[in-house]
């Protein structure tokens, strides 16, 4: 039986370099075979230790499950440590990945488009040539809109009666009434 197929992992940008080389007088006498770092491993290290996301957030960004992300992360730690300890080269290549491109929208023809060449900056709409383009991440935008649509709860202030639409992810008990500075509550 063939093993289960790996899901494609989302990598934001390819790394700026192809790898690392050790230097020093002992380099020639050591094992010179490079350690292969996959793109998804590089991305996991970048998200976790450079952008300081936790495993849960980082797994969502890469489009894999949290346990899979932790496995990728564990493997990159092992490889980087091995390269340091044994003084070996690291080469970043391969892996089951795709590179995500940014999405833009045009204000005059209302179309959406992406930018497959990251080196080229977008200044005009590719369809109508208008310069009213704005960068947007479609996924984030729609998620937020859907979330606020689905939530009909109301936060209210028990002392003065002030009411406000509830925002998801922000507990009512931590909100402070803008009028009388009392703690607010969820209206039932």
């Amino acid at each position: 039986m063939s093993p289960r197929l790996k899901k494609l992992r989302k990598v934001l940008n390819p790394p700026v370099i192809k790898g690392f080389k050790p230097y020093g007088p002992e380099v020639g006498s050591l094992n010179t075979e490079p350690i292969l770092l996959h793109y998804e491993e590089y991305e996991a290290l970048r998200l976790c230790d450079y952008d300081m996301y936790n495993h849960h957030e980082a797994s969502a960004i890469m489009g894999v499950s949290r346990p899979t992300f932790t496995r990728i992360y564990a493997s990159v730690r092992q490889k980087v440590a091995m390269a340091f300890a044994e003084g070996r080269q690291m080469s970043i290549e391969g892996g089951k990945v795709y590179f995500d491109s940014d999405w833009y929208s045009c204000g005059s023809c209302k179309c959406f488009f992406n930018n497959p060449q990251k080196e080229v900056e977008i200044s005009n709409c590719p369809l109508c040539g208008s310069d009213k383009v704005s960068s947007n991440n479609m996924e984030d935008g729609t998620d937020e809109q859907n979330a606020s649509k689905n939530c009909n709860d109301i936060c209210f202030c028990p002392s003065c009666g002030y009411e406000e639409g509830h925002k998801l992810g922000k507990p009512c008990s931590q909100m402070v009434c803008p009028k009388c500075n009392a703690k607010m509550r969820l209206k039932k």
Partner: protein
Amino acid sequence: MKVAITSSGNTLDSLLDERFGRCPYFVIYDTESKAMEFIPNPNINAENGAGPASVQLVASRNVSKIVSGEFGMKIKSLVDSLKIQMIVVKEPNKKVSDIIEMLNY
């Protein structure tokens, strides 16, 4: 530069098709020579894999942009790696001739 437009018919007055993989016709428009070519889509009744097969078809014509109403899940990673730009037009009732007019800004 060549642009692929998904069309629901083989005339300029046909409407832009809202799907990429299973649109009846592709219009390949060359912005420099103003030449256009209508290609019937062989994948219109495909059970699955219509999107990737259609990407192959338009990529073989060396297009650099694709205009359509919607792109499927399997397509995005494919066109990203081929460096083809996707343009999503969310307005129904746009004719192919309207799109070509907009491309000639």
